């Protein structure tokens, strides 16, 4: 700690105390359903969020977020879900299909925060993680083990992504912010399952994010990754270039010099 300021006077301290208090007092149920933070947003922000929601989201999600044809209910999805979906540009959706794509973000940070505050005001749900929860100073080894058990089958062992059924896919995790990784785990966007705090504790999630950032920022020991997409790409490379080189040498050895 460089700062002389006592921990309890830090700006996030109040939020952290509320968070801690709720986690401890709420017990198993609260932990399981991720009701982690009281609604600390101002009424003005909620009101601003409601206006944005009505103008941009209500066609599909209903004028009170209750869901409509083409869009699910947003009751109890929480601020984290809005922050993830809108913050990665997946929402507003471009069209129906097996899966929504990541695209340029359509709203500013304050607008996203306002919409998140509005949706969070509808019913309690997963909150946006705090800075403290997203620091990449966890245990990368433990995070790697958890990632291989819970995530790697879809997202690939180092988060390069992979295919699912009928046009769906698990996106690559390289280049995704810590906050969005955390929010995806806690909300389960689209067909991804939910990993609540009973399944992967906030500490576990921090370790997983630490692992992902570690493999993203460090070179692969084995040489070029070839996209890290596994033995098929590596095999193809060897078959085409390795075997091609051997055939070229064989032809050269057998040819007469001119």
């Amino acid at each position, binding site marked *: 700690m460089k700062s002389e300021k006592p921990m309890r006077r830090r700006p996030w301290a109040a939020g952290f105390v509320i968070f801690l208090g709720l986690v401890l007092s709420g017990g198993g149920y609260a932990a399981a359903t991720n009701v982690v933070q009281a609604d600390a947003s101002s009424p003005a922000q909620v009101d601003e969020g409601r206006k944005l929601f009505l103008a941009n989201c209500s066609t599909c999600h209903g004028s009170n977020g209750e869901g409509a044809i083409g869009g699910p209910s947003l009751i109890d999805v929480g601020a984290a879900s809005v922050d993830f979906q809108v913050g990665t540009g997946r929402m507003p959706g471009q069209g129906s299909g097996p899966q929504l794509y990541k695209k340029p973000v359509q709203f500013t940070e304050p607008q996203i925060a306002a919409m998140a505050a509005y949706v969070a005001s509808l019913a309690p749900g997963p909150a946006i993680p705090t800075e403290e929860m997203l620091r990449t100073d966890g245990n990368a080894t433990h995070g790697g083990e958890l990632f291989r058990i819970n995530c790697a089958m879809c997202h690939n062992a180092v988060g390069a992504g992979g295919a699912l059924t009928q046009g769906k896919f698990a996106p690559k995790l390289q280049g995704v912010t810590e906050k969005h990784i955390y929010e995806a785990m806690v909300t389960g966007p689209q067909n991804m*399952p939910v990993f609540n705090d*009973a399944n992967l504790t906030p500490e576990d999630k921090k370790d997983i994010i630490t692992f992902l950032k570690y493999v993203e920022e460090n070179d692969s*020991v084995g040489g070029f990754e070839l996209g890290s997409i596994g033995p098929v790409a590596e095999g193809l490379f060897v078959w085409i270039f390795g075997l091609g080189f051997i055939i070229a040498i064989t032809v050269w050895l057998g040819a007469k010099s001119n």
Partner: protein
Amino acid sequence: MSDIEKVYPAGLAGEIERPIPNPGIEPHRLRMTDKSEKHARTAEKQISAMFLVSVIGAFIAIWGFVAFPINDGDLSATRNNTLWMGVGMALSLFGIGFGAVHWAKTLMPDAEVSEPRHQARSPDESRAAAVEIIKMADGESGFSRRKLIRRSLYGALAVFPVPAIVIFGDLGPVVGDSLKNTMWREGVRLTKDPTGIPIKASEVTIGSVFHVIPEGLSDLDHKLEEKAKAAVLLVRVNPSDLNEDPAKAGWSYDGIVAYSKICTHVGCPVSLYEQHTHHLLCPCHQSTFDLANHCEVIFGPASRALPQLPIAVDAEGYLIAQRDFDQPVGPSFWDMRK
């Protein structure tokens, strides 16, 4: 009929009346290096350049080793170390090889010569001498004469390989019924992989996936062998989405279902779960199981639904197994129903 009948000469069926004449050795073609001293000198320079590349490669390998020492905690150094050592040594070896081949092809004599093979059959005198030697050896050793020795030798030679066959018995333990049962017993708690923390039913929210191992697995000596059979995927779906077999209605708990994670095709872990379609996809061969519909196969090479683990909740709210799976997990085998 008579016009198609033809009398063939006795002997080879494929006898050719007018064989293709032996073309002999093809005419020798002079290379540019034979005709022009200038070209020969160029080739000479090329060859020595390749040998020089080999020397440079060796120095690159040494430089890679010295410049990027492998030390703990810096994996990128390991990468550079192996990369430059490999590149350098490859250049070094290929330089010598390419140079040698280029030398042989351009400057060494390349006149075609023919060298007839000798007959495979030995001359008659040598064959007769060999027969004499064998007869003499038989006479001196008494191999034909001493029946007792000969027959006991045959016996010894017949029994000698038997130990080599017997040691196949050491390839592994007899399988027995270990393929048909797993660690799951009545009352065994469902715990999280890898920590072994028991799971409460209230913690499994809708859309959640837990990767589950039986309680006490980590205490076993051969835990991976047991895990390979007992691994389970625990999911909670909205009970209205679940189409349950009435006979197995008591096997789930309030929308929480547990299925074997071992694919019934060739045993890969089936764990790619889609929250809204309830599809479970196997990453190896794309077998797809419908979790909402007793995990029946809806796509791919698997031929059998994933076995369901009957679960219940104990007095403390933790999820427990009612009993073992009702059928073997993983790939089917011929006497699995016995």
